[in-house]
Each structure stands twice: as structure tokens, then as C-alpha cells.
């Protein structure tokens, strides 16, 4: 178990670092895919098999496809490394380090390693489904509605100019009411 954990951790951290450090977005995306699969492995290692499957399907199968698609569509370029970017990295790294070093000890303290007889729960489809459709029926429905909302939102945002060519904003010149310099009062 610890060995699996160590390997997975290394994989996850490495791929995560890859996501943030590769300058080419496609490379980042590929690292993310690795990471997501790694997470699925973690789920599996934690005996949440259903979640592991869902993870692969939803993330690698749906979300990542979408992401890569958009990446291609928008033709994202390789990011240039700038000084301000490095400063950002250093600063956020320091703060992140603080976060980990502050919270980490508390995590260890909160959940000390204990021995236990058997796996307490079963992350099986059956068990999950039971809870999901009874106790969590309302959140479940809400989640469904949420996805619905997301679709509507995406649909609205993706609308193009073609909808109404005579819209005033398109036909008229812009900024005719800009205030001249000279300030208030």
C-alpha cells in the first residue's frame, strides 16, 4: 500500500507540476490527463472503484476532450516566460509553501495512522447508488439541474453575431458617447 501510494503520489505531483510548468497548453493538457488518470488510480487504491471509473469517463472522456477541443479551436499559443510571471511563481510558491507547511502538520495530527481491521465501507456501485437515490436525492436532482444550467449558460455565451445582423451595436460605430477629457465638475 505505501508503495502504491508513493508511486501514485510521485506521478500525481509530477504531472501536476507539468501542468503548471509546460508552456505549451497542449503539453499541460496531456499532463493533466495523466494526472486525472492518476487520481482515478488513487480512487481505485482507496477502493472507490465506482468513482475511479466515473473519474476516467467524466474527466478523461468528457472534460479533457472539451478542453483540448477548445485549445485547438482557439489556437492557444505557447506562453512566454516573463519576469512578472516568474515573480508570480515565486510569490505564489512561497505562499503555497506556507499553506502546506501550516496545514500539513495539522493533517498529520488530525488523522494519525491507526490500525484497523477491515475496510469500513464499500465504495461499490450498489452502496453508492443506494445512498445517492435516497438520502441524496435532492442534491442529485440539483446536480442535474446544475448541469442543465451549465448547458444553457454555454449555449447563451456561445451565441454569435449571426443572430441579429441588424443589431444596433454592430451596425453603428462605437464610442460615440465617450466623455472628453476634462474631468468631472
Amino acid at each position, binding site marked *: 500500500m505505501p508503495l502504491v501510494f508513493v508511486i501514485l503520489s510521485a506521478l500525481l505531483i509530477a504531472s501536476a507540476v507539468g501542468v503548471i510548468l509546460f508552456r505549451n497548453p497542449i503539453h499541460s493538457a496531456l499532463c493533466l490527463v495523466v494526472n486525472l488518470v492518476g487520481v482515478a488510480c488513487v480512487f481505485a487504491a482507496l477502493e472507490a472503484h465506482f468513482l475511479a471509473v466515473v473519474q476516467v469517463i467524466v474527466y478523461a472522456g468528457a472534460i479533457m476532450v472539451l478542453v483540448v477541443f477548445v485549445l485547438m479551436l482557439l489556437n492557444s499559443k505557447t506562453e512566454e516566460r516573463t519576469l512578472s510571471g516568474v515573480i508570480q511563481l515565486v510569490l505564489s510558491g512561497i505562499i503555497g509553501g506556507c499553506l502546506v507547511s501550516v496545514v500539513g502538520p495539522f493533517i498529520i495530527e488530525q488523522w494519525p495512522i491507526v490500525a484497523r481491521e477491515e475496510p469500513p465501507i464499500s465504495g461499490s456501485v450498489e452502496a453508492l447508488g443506494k445512498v445517492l437515490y435516497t438520502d441524496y*436525492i435532492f442534491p442529485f436532482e440539483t446536480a442535474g439541474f446544475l448541469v442543465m444550467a451549465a448547458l444553457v449558460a454555454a449555449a447563451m455565451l456561445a451565441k454569435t453575431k449571426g443572430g441579429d445582423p441588424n443589431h444596433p451595436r454592430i451596425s453603428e460605430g462605437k464610442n460615440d458617447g*465617450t466623455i472628453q477629457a476634462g474631468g468631472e465638475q
Partner: protein
Amino acid sequence: MMTDLPLIAPLLVVAGGSLLVLLIDVFLRGRWPNVSASIGVLLLALVSAVVVAPEYLSHGTAFSGALFVDPYTSFISALVISGSILCLLMGKEYLEGEGISEAKGEYISLYLMATAGALVFVAAADLITLFLGLELMSMALYALCGAALYRSASAEAAMKYFFLGSFSSAFLLLGIAFLYGATGTLSLLELASALPESPTGLVGIGIALFLVGILFKMGAAPLHFWAPDVYQGSPTSVTLYMASVIKVAAVAVGLRVFSLTFGGAEYYELWSRGIWIAAVLTIVIGNLVAIRQRSVKRMLAYSSVAHAGYMLMGFLAPGEFGGGPAVLFYLVAYAVMTLGAFGVVMAVSARYQDSPDSDDIVRFNLLSRKRPFLAALMSLFLLSLAGLPPGMAGLLGKFYVFNAAIRAEYVGLALIGVLGSAISCYYYLRVIVAMYFVPSPSQAGGATSSYEDDCGEAIVAMPLAGTLAVCGVLTVLLGLQPSALFEAVETLFPPNLY
């Protein structure tokens, strides 16, 4: 399970209505009164909320502990729905411009979805539902912010709101995970009893992360950065929704969680210091930066940040100190006056929508001459925001909040609050200066005549005028008869008996 359905009738009406509006719109493509229909839906929701209100006296939960059924929920839900109605009424005409008209069907559908999300959010009795409600509300809002499809500012606002919102949600989520890990439950009620006697470090961190999520939605420092940009860039009809309804929801949830779930004395010790510093930062930053703004929308955004700070003051005086009711009173008063203020900004900037500085303070010049009643109402709202009579609602709001804070012996915080409040007078009054004191070009000798026709015009449609009038009346009445509201909200506390 099914028996609980009537309890969420308002939510069902809003959610169903949103889908129905969308569906009809697909076929009729905006050639039908979809806004009015949505207002109807919301009214229906309000009616149903009132109808089911007696059921909510029971202090229980519904759907296996997913939703609270208590007067607090009922009241906040009604408030959210009423606020949504007012916002929609105000923005009715506005929606024709800003490029929203093309996607009006989706816009309105999303608007109702956001309201539905807010209703879930405020009623949520477990952390998962809470998170989902928050995300539902936010998701719809992200899109609404970008509803002005061809305005880059709108897209930028949507982008910033989305990314920062999701960012903070992630923190919230991590916080939920920690709390869950520490207590083994996600239910807000069970959490309260399952928390260790004295907070362990990780529980503290979980609470902090949860607070971060709430502070973000409230627009409080140090997580306020999105608020000015998003308020400014979004279509004004969305801005006022965010400034009123969303803030109401966030504060209401925060208030409930912090006074109910984390209400124990030990835990109060823990988070009170954090909220104290957040309140101070919020008040100071909000007020300080607001004085440097030219865009009235942005200024009001910072002002709403500052007001979040005053509300946080009330968080610090839970229970017998009366902070809870004070915050709710403040919330209502704030919603009314800020709605009014943004409504006027909407009316004024409507005429200059093409210009990036459509809500520049110069646009308010001469408003008192060309639109005296609009200017008078704006003055009322601004004075109220500043806490000066005759803006009685704001005054009484401050009265209650400061009162509670001082009663809980936060005198230093109260002093910072009043100093901030004094600073706030400066920027609120600047708008009044523009509306009233700036000389007309004829007086000024024609030197500034270049923008004579450009200033002080406003487009005020009937619904907007009516809503503004309602807000104006409420602003005064809430102050003159505060007891009616205050005593009502007092009965809501504690938010749930257990």
C-alpha cells in the same frame, strides 16, 4: 420523500419556470413577453413561499436533511424571491440593449436558475447541498455576467467572475472535505454536535476555508477583488442582482452557519478573530478605494464591499447580543438601498451604453435639473447608504449593527466602522455633488457646454420607475418603523432549533 415536495414549492416553481421559459423561447424566439412571464413565475414562487411558510414553522429538515425547514429559510427565501422580482422589474427595459436582447430567452432562464440556486443555497442543510446550490447560483451568474455578448467588459467580467469564483469554490470544497474528515458528517446540524469540544487545528482550517468561500460571495476582503471588476463589467441588470440577491443569500448562509454550526463558545473564540480582521479589512479597503472611483458602478461596488464589512460586524455579536437580527435588518435595508442606487445608475447609463464610461460620474451632472425626482431618489439612496437621515433605512441598519457590535464589546471595531462610514460620506456625496452642485453650463459660462446635452439624461421606463419608488418608500419606512421588520427577524433566531 415525496411528502417533502410541497415544502420546496417555491423552488420547484422557479426551477420549472426557468425550463418552461427556455422551452417556449426556443419556439417563439423572444417574440413573447418572456420577462413578464418570468416575473409571473417569480411572483408565483413568492406566493407559494408565503403559502408554505406555515409549514416552515416546524424547525426541521426536508429531503433527508438536505434542506432546512425553518422560519429563517422561509424568510430568506421570500427575500431572495422578492429581490429577484425587483431586479428583474428594474432591468426589464435594460435588457433590450446591451446585446442581451439576442439571448434574452436564455438570459431569463438563467436568471431564474440563479434564483433557484440561491434558494437551494440558503435552504441547504448539508454541505453538499450547500455547495451545489452555490455552484448552481454561481454557474448561472457567470453566464449572466457575460450576457452582453459583444461588450468586451462583459466577457471580461464573466471570465474573472468564473475563474475567481471557481477558485474560491475549490477552497470551500477543500474546507468541506476537512470538516467532513474531522467530524464524519456533512450535515450542518450534525456537524455542530460532532465537532470536537475544542477546535483542533484542522477544524479551524476547515472553518477558515469555509469562511473564505462565504467571504468571496459576500464580496468581503481579502476576497473582494472580483467584486468591483465584475460589478462594473456586467450588465447593470446583473450587477444589481449580484449586489442585492446574491449578497443576501451569501450573508444569510454565512450567518446561519457561523451562528448555528460554529456557534459554540470555543468556536466563536476561533472565528471571531478571523472575522474581525476580515471586517476591518473590508471596511477599510472598501471605503478607501471607493473614494478614488470615477465610475459610479465601480464606486457602488466598493461601497457594497464596505457594507459587507458592516454586516460582518454583526456576525461577531451572535446570540443575545442581537447581531443576527441586526445583520438581517441591515441586509434588507442594504438590499433596498443598493438596489435603488444601482437602479438609478442603470437609468442614467442606459443612454450611453455604447460608451465604455457610461456610468462615469460626469453622467450624473445636471441630473437634478433634467430628472429631479430621479436625482432626489438617488440622493435618498446615497444618504441611506451613508447612514444619514432622511435615508433612515441605512441609519437604522447601522444603528442595529453598531449597537450589537458595541454590546459584544467590539468598540474598536465599531470605531473603525464609523470612521469608514465617515469616509463613505465623501464618495456618496460626490454623486450628489455631481447631480446637484455642478453648475449648468449656462451658469458656468459655457466653458463646459461640450457635454451639456450629454449629461443628466436618463431613460426611466415604468417598471424601473415603479421599483425605484418602492425602494425609496422602503428606504424611509424601514427606518421609521424598524421594529416591524426587526421584531420579525428576531423571531428567526436561532435559525434552527435542535
